[in-house]
């Protein structure tokens, strides 16, 4: 079976201008959303706070829970329904400056017991992260992300030319930025599992870029008569069926994870799904233009393929 006919020649590079506009629009919307919402929205892992996952045996709405929290004087609590509506299951999230988070969450559950009946709910998950640990986790996650990016850059630099490494890094910054923007737009809190997803996106984006760059590198000595932009266009077309197949099957598996995976990995799957889509697009439309741009800018006439 063949999805993409051999010798397909989409003019990818000719449409760079539109891609550039699209990328910038996505980035700017995301950044505006992040600024408007006062920075990325951290989950309790990175900010400290309390998260309760509560399943009620009877009809309770998110509004009821919000009211109950407000009665207790919790101003910045958030309540979010999860799963099907008939599950009556909620994530209750509150940040608190309270020194004793344990005692506080105890008080919340006592209050719920009074309001909704003692045996009408089951606290299925309770997470309490103190502010000190939150700060630690944030720093550790940043360190892990930074170091793994540097590690990958060094590897690509070592295996390819610098401009490919640069292209890969610009592409992955592009992917992470847009994904973060969409997370901000959809109010998805960034916690440890979302960071893991972001890092996977980084890996995927680099992986995708490598496949295209590998082909460009392979084609360059064979096609000395062609312009660099043409070589890139041919290479992208040659790897197109792979790009679509791999991207397609990854996205298929992720949709399964997103739809059936349950509450706990919901955000993880969502982040991965968006990142994979953007990552596939960016290896064509971000990494390649950077390579071309760098070539036009710094590589002298002799070296440049004409």
């Amino acid at each position: 079976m063949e999805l993409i006919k051999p010798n397909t020649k989409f003019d990818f590079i000719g449409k760079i201008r539109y891609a550039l506009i699209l990328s910038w629009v996505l980035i700017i919307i995301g950044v505006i959303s992040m600024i408007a919402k006062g920075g990325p929205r951290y989950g309790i892992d990175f900010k400290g706070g309390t998260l309760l996952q509560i399943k009620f045996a009877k009809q309770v709405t998110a509004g009821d829970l919000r009211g109950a929290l407000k009665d207790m004087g919790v101003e910045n609590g958030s309540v979010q329904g999860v799963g099907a509506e008939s599950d009556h299951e909620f994530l209750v999230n509150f940040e608190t400056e309270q020194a004793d988070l344990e005692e506080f969450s105890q008080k919340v559950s006592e209050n719920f017991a009074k309001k909704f009946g003692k045996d009408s709910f089951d606290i299925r998950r309770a997470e309490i992260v103190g502010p000190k640990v939150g700060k630690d986790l944030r720093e550790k996650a940043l360190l892990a992300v930074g170091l793994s990016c540097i590690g990958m850059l060094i590897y690509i630099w070592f295996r390819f030319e610098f401009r490919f490494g640069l292209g890969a890094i610009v592409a992955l910054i592009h992917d992470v930025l847009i994904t973060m923007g969409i997370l901000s737009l959809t109010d998805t809190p960034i916690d440890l599992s979302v960071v893991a997803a972001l890092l996977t996106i980084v890996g995927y984006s680099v992986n995708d870029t490598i496949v295209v760059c590998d082909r460009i590198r392979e084609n360059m000595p064979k096609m000395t008569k062609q312009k660099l932009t043409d070589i890139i266009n041919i290479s992208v077309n040659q790897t197109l069926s792979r790009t679509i197949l791999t991207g397609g099957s990854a996205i298929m598996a992720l949709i399964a994870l997103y739809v059936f995976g349950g509450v706990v990995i919901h955000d993880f799957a969502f982040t991965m799904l968006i990142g994979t889509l953007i990552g596939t697009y960016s290896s064509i439309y971000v990494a390649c233009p950077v390579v071309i741009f760098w070539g036009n800018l710094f590589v002298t006439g002799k070296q440049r393929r004409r």
Partner: protein
Amino acid sequence: MLKNMKWRAILYAVINLVAVVYLLPTFVKMPTWWEDYLPSEKISLGLDLQGGMHLILGVETEKAVENTVERYGTDLEEMFFNERIPFDHVKKIAKDRLEVQIVDPAARDKAGKLLEDKFSVMKKVKVEETKDGIIYILELDKREAEQIKKSATEQALETIRNRIDQFGVAEPTIQQQGDDRILIQLPGIKDPKRALDLIGKTALLEFKILDEEGNLDDALKGNVPLDDQVLYQREVNRETGEVKKVPFLLKKKTLLTGDRLVNAQVRIESQFNEPYVSLEFDARGAAMFEKITEKYVNKRLAIVLDNNVYSAPVIKEKISGGNAQISGRFTPEEARDLAIVLRAGSLPAPVTILEKRTVGPSLGQDSIDKGLLAMIIGSIATFLFMLVYYRLSGLVANFALVLNILLLLAVLAGFRGTLTLPGLAGIVLTIGMAVDANVLINERIKEEMRSGKTLKASIDAGYTRAFLTIMDSNLTTIIAAIFLFQFGTGPVKGFALTLTIGLLANIFTAVAITRLIFDYFVVERRIKTLSI
């Protein structure tokens, strides 16, 4: 070539067989002869999958230093008293500082020598002569303070381990983290609140005498007599859950502490069928207890745990033999837990909860069900996709995919790894990367075939070309995963672990094993066309 292929086939078969041997105990209960000779390690489920409690406690090590300095102060007072050195006061003026005032300048030499000989860890930072006597400012040696902090954490860890062992939790994890943190994981725990009470209790048991001459009402208004303190007894009404606090005016001085206990047991009082905790002191403790009960006969002795009064019975007569009891309307669980903490000893410093994550078993089961369902659906979709698109070659790729998962799980079992929900996600990503590797190879073979090469040449070229790309892409991801594992925490670690193992296995299954299968068909069966 043929011989070479045979050896490759044997090698690969052995590798996969070993993997099966490692993986079997995880899924099947093995007979004893197996456990004697063959690996019996299992993959265990993470807290997020089987339910349980994850805790990070911070040990307030500063408090341990403070306690030590306070104790030195009391010792010093006693020693001055015994040596008949007239002093005005010994008081703590900072966490690690004492101020001592000697009244009689004539006792200066004697006091100085005493401080030097017996309290060398307290450094004299200032000596001042005033008309009221000599004032010493003593400071705890910095190195000693560090030592106290270090051993406080170690001791707390040991005590908590003891308590958890006696409480009875299967396969707990108790580790020190950093300088003053303790990581505790209790899988499958049913009653997290009770476990938390047991672990987090300082359990400092003190015996103090009631000040029956002092005026309690006055003290409650704020006029607490010098050397006295007000502590409360909590009385919980079992029907209504109401808490009543009864105040007591006590002499501050601690007469005896739980350090001198050798045993604590739950007993049932016969009259009202209520449980109580019986205590047994060591020889020195028994002697001290006898002396106390003799001296304070007909007075009330308060039994104080963590600054809560449990009971304050009247001493009817001198008690020798070193036995005492704590009663206080306990439930059987409360009595049992109290006996455990008393046996395991007190924490050298209070602990605070820095992080606590509990997952109920119902959610854990839910996560397993949903995670597995998602994985199975995702895998089936991927398998079908490969089959439809690549036909027989797709079957080869799927076979490699199954072996990949097998190897991944076997390695996880061999290292007694833990499977978490993010770990499952790592497996899903591994499947994705494995598909990618096969797609890269197959697309390349197709391309080479289109350029007119023979099947064998196409396969050769396809593998050679695709291999570099696969190596590059897998290695970059592994690099990222290794950093994640090294510096990440909790869920990130589980994800990085399965991903790394999965990708390493992937290089083997997607490249080496599929190649062997293709080679077999092309060389041995001499097929000329490939269903790809």
